[in-house]
């Protein structure tokens, strides 16, 4: 017997992601004038869902047989749990940070979108994953659209196209895999069969996850869409989509060698763009690529702890950097390096919190970044891949340059912009302080975080505060800082000039735009043609259907009684043939 419908509803209501989505919908009914109530309801929902998730412990729930297939709506294993916990924390911090935001649609998205990401990481089967994957795409686009301008609308459409493409690929992969294995279970998939041949279903899914985690060449949507969102929207966007993809990669492709190289490239290339970028929000968006690169690399090494741990850490400290920059933007109205600067005088609290985030993302000993990134660098060293190890070290130095130094330096120091804004509002300071204290607290006492790691066996052999780790990291940081100083003094460091953002975008915008316009015109023309022929066909079919089924048609008209009797006799003959011949 299949699943009964009450089972199905019960399973849905026992899923934290569904509950959060419902809460987001309910909170959206609290209209203008009741924003604080709405935020409080959203926070309460997150707290409830967090406790619920923790209380569930590890295991699977919502094992249903629907239409002959087994699906698992909720699976909390250590990998899902660490992501679920940090998603809850991040969503809550964002709600506090965005307390001043009055937009209902944004508030809905800032709970429904994390909920979808949560549903994705806790999905126990591929179909459930696919559903949440698409819901995440749809709810997040509300954030891109939030400013409500034409530019953001178009960016949102582009974003949606990419996300839906990823979803379509995922579905294709699911279908291919189902045909191959006959199961929808979501476990390790791999890019190759055991005999070494290419695993097509795996490859398709790999691409789907790759688009969402912004693999090189698939990364442009991040810089395109994210900075265009609102202040608070960007922060939320930066957290969930890529991390959901990382969690999916970690589950499906652990130890996949290709990921090492992809990850290494991801860590390197954004650094150059970030160094010359003038818009600091875009700098941070490049930094997302670079940071996800470390996680992808870790998955390639099979160091799932490194990927999950760094994702956890990154969500906190990168979020903190985004928030601090956001506070500056909130007060000054600009995020361009050329127009910021010297804000430390009047925004000291924000400055200190920003520096904590910067130290943490640079993996300074005693911070969350140090205790999580070390696992990845260690894994690279242990894999005896010298060049990769060197690349990651170089990329770490690059992180220090663009995120660790550039962001706080150009925002709060550098040349004096003459702006004297107030310090960040209280709710922003609260959110940032919580994130900052997590950066330092978990950095000094990593045991709590390590206890959540997926691979307890591996983590028990890892000790972050050994002399070797500390010396290695300090050397790196010192030399990189010196390099920044030298470059700055010698005026070799790319100065903050308003026009620098031409480089990456030029290819993208000028020839790319032409290509895009041509492609869209062509698509529209083809669509028009198709629709025309389709429409004609539909009309044709409808006319035929009407002639038979319409009120005067043969099937609908009233027939004389003799005909009815004849029909019955014919049916009897028909039935008798089968009864007697069978």
């Amino acid at each position, binding site marked *: *017997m*299949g*699943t*009964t*419908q*009450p089972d199905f509803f019960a399973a849905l209501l026992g899923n934290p992601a569904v509950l959060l989505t419902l809460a987001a919908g309910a909170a959206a009914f609290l209209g203008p004038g009741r924003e604080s109530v709405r935020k409080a309801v959203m926070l309460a929902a997150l707290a409830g869902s967090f406790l619920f998730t923790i209380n569930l412990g590890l295991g699977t729930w919502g094992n249903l047989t*629907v*239409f*002959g297939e087994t699906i698992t709506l909720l699976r909390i294993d250590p990998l899902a749990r660490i992501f679920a916990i940090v998603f809850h924390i991040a969503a809550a911090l964002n709600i506090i940070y965005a307390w001043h935001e009055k937009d209902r649609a944004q508030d809905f998205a800032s709970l429904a979108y994390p909920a979808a990401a949560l549903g994705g990481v806790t999905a126990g089967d591929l179909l459930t994953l696919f559903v949440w994957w698409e819901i995440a795409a749809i709810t997040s686009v509300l954030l891109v659209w939030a400013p409500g301008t034409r530019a953001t609308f178009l960016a949102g459409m582009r974003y949606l196209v990419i996300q839906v493409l990823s979803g379509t690929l995922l579905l294709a992969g699911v279908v291919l895999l189902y045909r191959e294995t006959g199961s929808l279970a979501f476990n390790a998939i791999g890019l190759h069969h055991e005999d070494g041949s290419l695993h097509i279903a795996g490859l398709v899914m790999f691409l789907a996850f790759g688009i969402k985690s912004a693999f090189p060449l698939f990364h442009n949507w991040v810089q395109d869409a994210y900075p265009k969102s609102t202040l608070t929207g960007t922060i939320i966007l930066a957290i969930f989509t890529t991390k959901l993809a990382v969690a999916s990669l970690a589950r499906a492709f652990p130890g996949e060698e290709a990921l090492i190289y992809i990850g290494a490239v991801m860590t390197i290339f954004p650094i150059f763009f970030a160094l010359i970028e003038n818009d600091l929000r875009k700098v941070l968006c490049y930094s997302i690529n670079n940071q996800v690169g470390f996680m992808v690399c870790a998955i390639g090494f099979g160091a799932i702890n490194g990927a999950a741990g760094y994702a956890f850490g990154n969500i906190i400290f990168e979020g903190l950097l985004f928030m601090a920059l956001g506070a500056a933007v909130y007060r000054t109205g600009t995020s361009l390096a050329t127009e910021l600067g010297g804000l430390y005088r009047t925004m000291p609290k924000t400055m200190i919190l920003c520096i904590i985030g910067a130290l943490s993302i640079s993996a300074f000993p005693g911070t969350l970044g140090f205790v999580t990134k070390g696992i990845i660098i260690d894994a690279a060293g242990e894999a005896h891949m010298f060049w990769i190890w060197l690349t990651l070290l170089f990329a770490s130095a690059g992180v220090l340059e663009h995120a660790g130094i550039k962001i706080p330096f150009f925002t709060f120091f550098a040349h004096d912009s003459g702006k004297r804004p107030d310090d960040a509002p209280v709710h922003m300071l609260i959110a940032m302080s919580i994130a900052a204290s997590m950066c330092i607290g978990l950095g000094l006492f990593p045991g709590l975080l390590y206890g959540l790691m997926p691979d307890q066996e591996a983590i028990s052999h890892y000790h972050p505060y050994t002399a070797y780790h500390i010396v290695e990291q300090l050397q790196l940081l010192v030399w990189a800082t010196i390099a920044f100083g030298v470059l700055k003094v010698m005026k070799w460091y790319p100065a903050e000039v308003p026009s620098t953002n031409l480089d990456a975008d030029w290819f993208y915008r000028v020839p790319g735009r032409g290509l895009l316009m041509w492609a869209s015109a062509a698509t529209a023309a083809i669509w028009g043609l198709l629709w025309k022929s389709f429409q004609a066909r539909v009309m044709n079919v409808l006319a035929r*259907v*009407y002639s*038979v*089924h*319409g*009120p005067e*048609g043969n*099937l*609908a008209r*009233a*027939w004389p*009684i003799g*005909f*009815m*009797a004849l*029909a*019955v006799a014919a*049916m*009897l003959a*028909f*039935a*008798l043939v*089968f*009864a*007697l*011949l*069978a």
Partner: protein
Amino acid sequence: MSLIEQLPVLPIIIPLVAAPFCLIIPNGRIAYFYAIAISALTFLSCIGLLHGVAAGGTISYYLGDWAPPLGIEYRIDLANALVLTLISGVAALVIPASYPSIAAEANPKQIPLFYGAMLICMLGLLGVTITGDAFNVFVFLEISSLATYALVALGGRADRRALTASFNYLVMGTLGATFFVIGLGLLYQATGTLNMADIRVQLLENGTNRMVEAGYAFIIIGMGLKAAMFPMHLWLPNAYTYAPSAVSAFIAAASTKVAVYVLIRFTFSVVGADFDFVSAMLSYVLMPLALAGMFFASLVAVFQTDVKRMLAYSSVGQIGYMLLGISLGTEAGLQASIIHIFNHGLMKAALFLSVACVMLRLGVHTVDGFNGLAKRMPFTAAAFIFAGLSLVGVPLTVGFVSKWYLLQAAFEADRAWIAFLIVASSLIAVVYVGRIIELILLREPPEDGPLFRDVDGNPVREAPMVMLVPMWILVLANVYFGLRTDVTADLAGRAAASLIGGQ
């Protein structure tokens, strides 16, 4: 002899004894209250039976203490207890709602006769369902059919076409009953018994032969005609359209369902689906006809300009779903079929009652009467919309439950293409229901012309309370059983298990 021991016979005895008294009641209103009381009593005894069967298993009652196979046995298991509850429940709701409607549509002098016929019709349907004796099925079938012909003909005052509709129905119904009784005769010849359980025993002992096979084919066709199986449904649209509105509501909800029930009973527990010829009939006769009905009848419904006629064709399509469940031949399919029998009764009763409300106020049952109905008769309009969504199969309504189980059954039988067809045909229902909902919600009520005012020339008012309350009870039942699926699904599941397990 306590009353409880006699409970199985009460649903038959109460209306059987009570109905003739309607003839001597001079006043329609008194007959109305009398019929309400009788139908309520009958409903209560059916609820009691359902309770008893759900808790204590199959009840067997020997009429006049004559033991079967010689005597007549009433045999109530979950499958027929559920159908009994549906029939008496719909009667207990339609009869209270019927007075304003029948008073407006029929000759006032005939109102006591109307209630007498309603009670007899209900009694016949209950009798078909309750009895464990094959010939007794035929007897009760004729009782209910004769009453139905009279009830349909009562619509002749409002529309003379009711008379031909009734006459056609009579001829076709008699044809169906004749086929059925021929089938019974053949089975009797082959097995020497008329007790259903005993026929089964004899067949298992002696095996099948040509006579049994032909008999079964006659029964399928005879009952298929009564159930309006496509393409033997031609009597149904006119009968439902021109009968008085209250009669349509009752027979649409109850009478074809009983025929489907008899099909289930004969297929699974009298003959048995384990015989090759039965499974061949299911796969090659029942299934194609069910699928054809789902599509062709639903498509016809799309183009109807008369709402009652549209609902009638929709019924033919919905019967297709029930037959489809049976034709899968699996326990899950049977469960889906029984669930849909029950659920479809709830939807169609509510829908036809809302049409009755429109008919009462505006005097028409064409689509024109539904223009802007939400503004003129909001409660009636809302009831139609909810029940219509249930007919489409929107989640949280019983229609969704039906489709859900039917889809599950199709997948379980490894026939995903059937699941696809179920969904595709549901989309047709979206069109024909959506069409009316569009009229109700988005069109403006007419500014002048014949439908500007009600039949008495007054501004159009909401339907009277006596009609609204029963209608809304049915609508709420649509939602309640859509949420509390454990009630119907569990009972239907057990009923299906016992029907299949009895083989």
